C-alpha cells in the first residue's frame, strides 16, 4: 500500500513512566526510563536508533530554559540528529508526526520519539506558568488564566448546541473509570455525574472534576521503516496517516464552538490513510481530553460524528470500551494524567497497544485494526492527528 513519502513507517515499541503530581525523578531520568522501556520492548539498542525527536511544552514548567537541549542524552540523542518539537498541548502527537516524517522522508530508518513534562517544579502552581502564554498587551492585564480561555470555549460550545453540563460530565465519569485499568494512571476513580456537578466551581462552567490534573511523566515510542520493522516483528503497527494544522493567534476573532484546525489536520491524515468514512472505518480513538468537553469538541473535529452530536453518542454508550466507537479507552488525560508533552505520546502508546491486542484490562473487543490519536494545543489553535493501522 503506497503511502505519502518515500518509506512506510511503523511503530515497533512503546514505553511509559507513571504519571503523578510530583515525581522524585528529574525530567531527564523520566525521559530515560520511558525511552529505555520503548527500546527494550522493540528489541533494539541505542546504536540502532538513527534520529531522535523530543517533544515538551513550555520550558517554564520544568524551569529549565532550552529544555530540549537539557533532555538530549536522556532521550537517547547523544551525538545523533535531534530535534525538539513544541506546539503546546499538541506536542505529544506532533512529536509522532515529526518522527513519521523523519522516516517517511527517506532520511532515516529508525527514530525514537520521546515526550516529557515535569510540571511540578513550577510554584506556586504550574497553572501560573500558563499566564505567560497570553498577549502581554491585550490579554495579560486582565489577569487572564488558562482556565478562563477553556471555560470561554466550553461555554460557547454549550451555547451553540444547547448542551448541558450533565451531558458533558459523562465524559469525566467514563474516562476516570477507564483509567482505573491503566497501571500508570494518576486519577483513576469511580465518580458520578453528581460528583462532577457538585465539585468546586473554578471558572463557570468549568468545575474541578471537569479538568485533568497537572502531572510529571514521560512516554516514548520507537518508529522504524518498513524494511527494519518487518525484521523486528511480525506485528508492526503502521502509521498510515499524519496531519497537523494551526489556526490564527487572534483567538478572540474566532468562533470557538468548533475546532476547524482539528478538522483540517484530520482531513490531511485521513487523506493519506484513504479513510473516507471516519466513524465506520475507525475502530478506536484517543482524542485529546484535558477537559471533559474537549473530548466531545474533538470527536466532532475528527469527523467522528456531526457537529453537536458527540454528547448524544456519549450518552448512548457508543464511546464506552465495548461500544461501537470506543473513545479514550486509556482513561485519557482526565484519568491517566496530563504531563503536557508526554500526554499525546501516551495516547499514541495506547493506540499502539490496543491495535496489537496488548492493552490488558483496557483492551477494546472486536479486534481493532485502525486507531486515531489526536492532540490539541496553544491558544486553542493547534491540531495534530495520527492514524495507525494493523
Amino acid at each position, binding site marked *: 500500500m503506497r503511502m505519502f513519502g518515500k518509506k512506510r513507517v511503523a511503530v515497533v515499541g512503546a514505553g511509559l513512566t507513571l504519571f503523578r503530581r510530583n515525581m*522524585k525523578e528529574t525530567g531527564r531520568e523520566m525521559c530515560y526510563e520511558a525511552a529505555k522501556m520503548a527500546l527494550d520492548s522493540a528489541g533494539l539498542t541505542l546504536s540502532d536508533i538513527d534520529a531522535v525527536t523530543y517533544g515538551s511544552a513550555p520550558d517554564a514548567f520544568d524551569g529549565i530554559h532550552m529544555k530540549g537541549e537539557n533532555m538530549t542524552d536522556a532521550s537517547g540523542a547523544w551525538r545523533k540528529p535531534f530535534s525538539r518539537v513544541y506546539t503546546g498541548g499538541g506536542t505529544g502527537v506532533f512529536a509522532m508526526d515529526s518522527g513519521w516524517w523523519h522516516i517517511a522522508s527517506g532520511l532515516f530508518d529508525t527514530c525514537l520519539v520521546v515526550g516529557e513534562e515535569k510540571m511540578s*517544579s513550577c510554584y506556586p502552581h504550574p497553572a501560573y*506558568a500558563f499566564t505567560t502564554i497570553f498577549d502581554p*498587551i491585550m490579554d495579560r492585564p486582565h489577569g487572564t488564566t488558562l482556565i478562563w480561555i477553556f471555560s470561554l470555549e466550553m461555554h460557547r460550545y454549550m451555547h451553540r448546541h444547547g448542551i448541558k453540563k450533565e451531558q458533558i460530565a459523562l465524559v469525566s465519569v467514563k474516562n476516570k473509570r477507564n483509567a482505573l485499568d491503566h497501571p500508570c494512571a494518576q486519577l483513576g476513580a469511580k465518580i458520578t455525574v453528581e460528583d462532577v456537578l457538585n465539585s468546586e466551581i473554578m471558572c463557570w462552567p468549568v468545575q474541578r472534576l471537569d479538568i485533568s490534573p497537572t502531572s510529571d511523566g514521560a512516554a516514548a515510542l520507537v518508529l522504524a521503516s518498513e524494511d527494519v520493522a518487518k525484521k523486528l516483528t511480525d506485528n508492526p503497527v503502521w502509521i498510515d496517516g499524519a496531519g497537523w494544522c494551526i489556526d490564527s493567534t487572534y483567538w478572540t476573532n474566532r468562533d470557538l464552538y468548533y475546532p476547524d484546525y482539528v478538522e483540517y489536520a484530520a482531513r490531511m491524515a485521513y487523506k493519506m490513510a484513504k479513510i473516507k468514512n471516519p466513524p465506520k472505518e475507525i475502530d478506536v480513538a484517543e482524542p485529546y481530553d484535558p477537559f471533559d468537553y474537549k473530548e466531545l469538541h474533538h470527536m466532532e473535529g475528527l469527523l467522528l460524528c456531526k457537529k453537536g452530536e458527540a454528547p448524544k453518542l456519549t450518552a448512548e454508550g457508543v464511546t464506552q470500551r465495548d461500544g461501537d466507537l470506543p473513545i479514550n479507552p486509556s482513561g485519557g488525560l482526565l484519568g491517566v494524567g496530563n504531563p503536557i508533552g508526554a500526554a499525546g505520546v501516551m495516547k499514541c502508546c495506547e493506540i499502539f497497544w490496543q491495535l496489537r491486542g496488548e492493552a490488558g484490562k483496557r483492551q477494546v473487543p472486536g479486534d481493532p485494526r485502525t486507531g486515531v490519536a489526536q492532540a490539541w494545543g496553544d491558544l486553542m489553535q493547534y491540531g495534530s492527528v495520527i492514524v495507525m493501522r494493523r
Partner: protein
Amino acid sequence: MTVEKIHDTQEIRYWPGHMETDYIYTLGIAGERFFNEIKKNGKIMGAKCKKCGIVYVPPRTYCEQCFEKLEQWLDVGKRGIVHTYTIAHIDLDGSKLRDPTIYAMIKIDGTNGGLIHKIGEAKPSNVKIDMRVEAVLKAKEKREGSINDIKYFKPVK
C-alpha cells in the same frame, strides 16, 4: 499601506512585564544520592558504566552512550585538574564584581567527568590549565546537600 514609519518617537509604545515564578527542583534519583554523599560523608561520587567503562561525574542513572542503567557507584576522591577556566569581572546583572572570581571546569581524576566550580586560595594570575586542584568542603554541620557544600577547589602540588 506598507509597514508605516513612525516619525514621532512619542508614538512608540512599550509594555513592561515580567515572567518570573518560583521553582523547586527535586534532585532526582541520582542527584539525591550524589548530594547526600557530599553532605553526610564528604565524598564526591561517580557512576561507572559496566559496558563502556565510562565513569560519570556528576553521576546519573543511565549511560548516555550505550543507554544501560548505571548501578555501580564509586568514591572518585576530591582531586582533579583544571580543564579550562575563566575570570569573571561582572555579575549576573552586568555590574562590576568587587573581586574577580575564578570559575573552572575541573576534571576529576580517574573519571570522564567534572564539575563547574570556583577556584579559591589562588590569585587569577596563578591559575593555569592542567593545574592540579583539590575540593575544599564546608564543615559538615554547615553542609546542606547542594553544590555549594564544596566551597571551592584549591591548588595542590
